[in-house]
């Protein structure tokens, strides 16, 4: 047990010895181990989604001054099971004229696009993803999710689903640009695309180096998932569920679970890129502690995402696209340029001076941006919506009182 805590690959060695003891050849053992690992990586997060659904409903309810589910099981903990049972027993409706292979493939691809993000994430020292093109891999997995949504909208044989799918793809593709640009900053600071290297370069968390980039990454990730305030894509009061309007039962459950898992995954990714990933006291001796730290940090960011969801109203589609192209992309470009030039100068200064130099540059960029936005807002033509109403004034008794302004 102590050996496992110190070095989890002991488990893999034990499994390999067991399988080869049963008479499997070396190549087949490797294949079986890879399949087991893939299965664990695909199933674990989906099981965690069960808890996430409960937590989100409780948290949003508390934000809205109500209790949330509390009937099914103590504190409503069995509510997600009730949800899943309900969705499983629903009638499986396929709309007339729907393109069946694509209709079935879309929810699968949507969840696959989220689960594909997990192999790149470093879970601890020597555990988890160690892809040397990790950041590019994350972006590539994101594009598969976009495709799934397009398929869902098209194959439903529903004009409104198709329009919603177009809008969704427009939003997701627009917000990919600032995401890629902002992700360049941790890559720049760590000098590697490998997420494990990025985590190991964070003696000081990158959120201290580039807090503006962390904020932009959080905003962009929330937009990529399609959560409030960017959830026009599935807003019930406006476009009635958008691209998954024709999905019910288990297929809708896949979209639903995929969205929650995606929200948690971006929490984990923000923790990896900006909050130090699995680093923490004792994590380099006991890698299992690293997993715990990563989970806690990811959960904290997930809580912030739920917080934002419970607090903010929806953004309109044209505001949303303007926000991405006219504000976030130039800001991200400016951040990357300033960061790159500054890092060339300060790279030999030592850890904390370098961090503080980058922090200062971020603060300067933020202040300049605020000033520019203020100047732009001042120049906005404001439509005159009315005159100030006359306030009630005491009149002499002979005249009738004017109506008091209310």
């Amino acid at each position, binding site marked *: 047990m102590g050996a496992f805590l110190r070095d989890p690959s002991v488990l893999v060695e034990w499994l390999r010895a067991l399988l080869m003891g049963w008479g499997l050849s070396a*190549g087949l053992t*490797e*294949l079986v181990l890879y399949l087991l690992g893939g299965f664990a990586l695909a199933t674990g997060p989906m099981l965690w989604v069960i808890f996430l659904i409960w937590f989100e409903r409780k948290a949003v309810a508390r934000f809205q001054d109500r209790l949330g589910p509390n009937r099914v099981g103590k504190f409503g903990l069995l509510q997600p099971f009730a949800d899943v049972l309900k969705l499983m027993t629903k009638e499986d409706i396929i709309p007339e004229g729907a*393109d069946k*292979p*694509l209709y079935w493939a879309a929810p699968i691809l949507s969840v696959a696009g989220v689960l594909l993000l997990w192999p790149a994430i470093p879970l601890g020292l020597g555990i988890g993803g160690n*892809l*040397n*093109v990790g950041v*590019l*891999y994350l*972006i*590539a997995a*994101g*594009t*598969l999710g*976009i*495709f799934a949504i*397009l*398929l869902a909208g*098209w194959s439903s044989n529903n004009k409104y689903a*198709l329009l919603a799918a*177009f809008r969704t*793809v427009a939003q997701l*593709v627009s917000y*990919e640009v600032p995401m890629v640009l902002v992700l360049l900053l941790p890559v720049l600071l760590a*000098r*590697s*695309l490998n997420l494990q290297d990025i985590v190991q370069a964070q003696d000081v968390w990158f959120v201290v180096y580039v807090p503006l980039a962390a904020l932009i990454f959080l905003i962009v990730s929330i937009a990529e998932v399609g959560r409030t305030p960017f959830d026009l894509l599935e807003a019930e009061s406006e476009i009635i569920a958008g691209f998954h309007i024709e999905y019910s039962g288990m297929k809708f459950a896949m979209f639903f679970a995929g969205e929650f898992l995606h929200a948690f995954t971006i929490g984990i990714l923000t923790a990896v890129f900006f909050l130090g990933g699995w680093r923490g006291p004792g994590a380099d001796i006991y890698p299992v502690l690293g997993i715990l730290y990563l989970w806690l940090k990811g959960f904290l960011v997930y809580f912030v995402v739920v917080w934002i969801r419970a607090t903010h109203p929806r953004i309109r589609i044209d505001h949303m696209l303007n926000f991405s192209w006219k504000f976030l992309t130039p800001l991200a470009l400016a951040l990357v340029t300033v960061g790159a030039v500054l890092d060339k100068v300060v790279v030999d200064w030592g850890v904390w001076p370098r961090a503080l130099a980058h922090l200062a540059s971020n603060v300067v960029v933020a202040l300049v941006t605020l000033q520019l936005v203020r100047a*732009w807002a001042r*120049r*906005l*033509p404001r*439509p005159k919506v009315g005159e100030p109403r006359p306030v009630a004034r005491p009149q002499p008794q002979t005249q009738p009182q004017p109506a008091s302004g209310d």
Partner: protein
Amino acid sequence: MVTTFLFGLIALIMVLAALVAVTNRNLVRATMGLVLVLFGNAVLFVLLEAYFLAMAQIIIYIGAIAILIVFAIMLTRHVGEDWGPAFHRAWPWALVIAGGLGGALLFWMVRWPGGENTPAGQVDPNYVQALGQALVNPQGYVVPFEVASVLLLAALIGAIYVAWGGRRVKGPYPQRAEGGER
């Protein structure tokens, strides 16, 4: 052995998807076949240990080009319908030319001496860094890199001009015509 098995599987899937892409009458399904072929291409790059190329393939081809193709197809009117025969009238000639070219290529490629005798090159573990440095090295590929950027800029400007549609009221906020709320 595992790589050979995987290669065979991927190649089979790619060939089937390519057949779907060229013969299916439903344009969207044909596009999905194309996407599967491109994805198989990326998997082949991974099998060859060219991970950067694989990711670039997915991001550029599937994430941008395929989505563009799907948009263009979905915006045409006759997508889901049966719009005539799937094969061109002169398909025997096409078969002869394609078969002839393909056969000639295969014939000469099998006889190429460099294929078997060259050992697989050693992949530098820092090849991403090497790629980045080669792209900005004055003795490297900086000139083609910058020329490609200028070309992309020209395409962007052209697209913006075409989409912009001419005259608009200048100002910090797009104005609308009279009537209607903002």
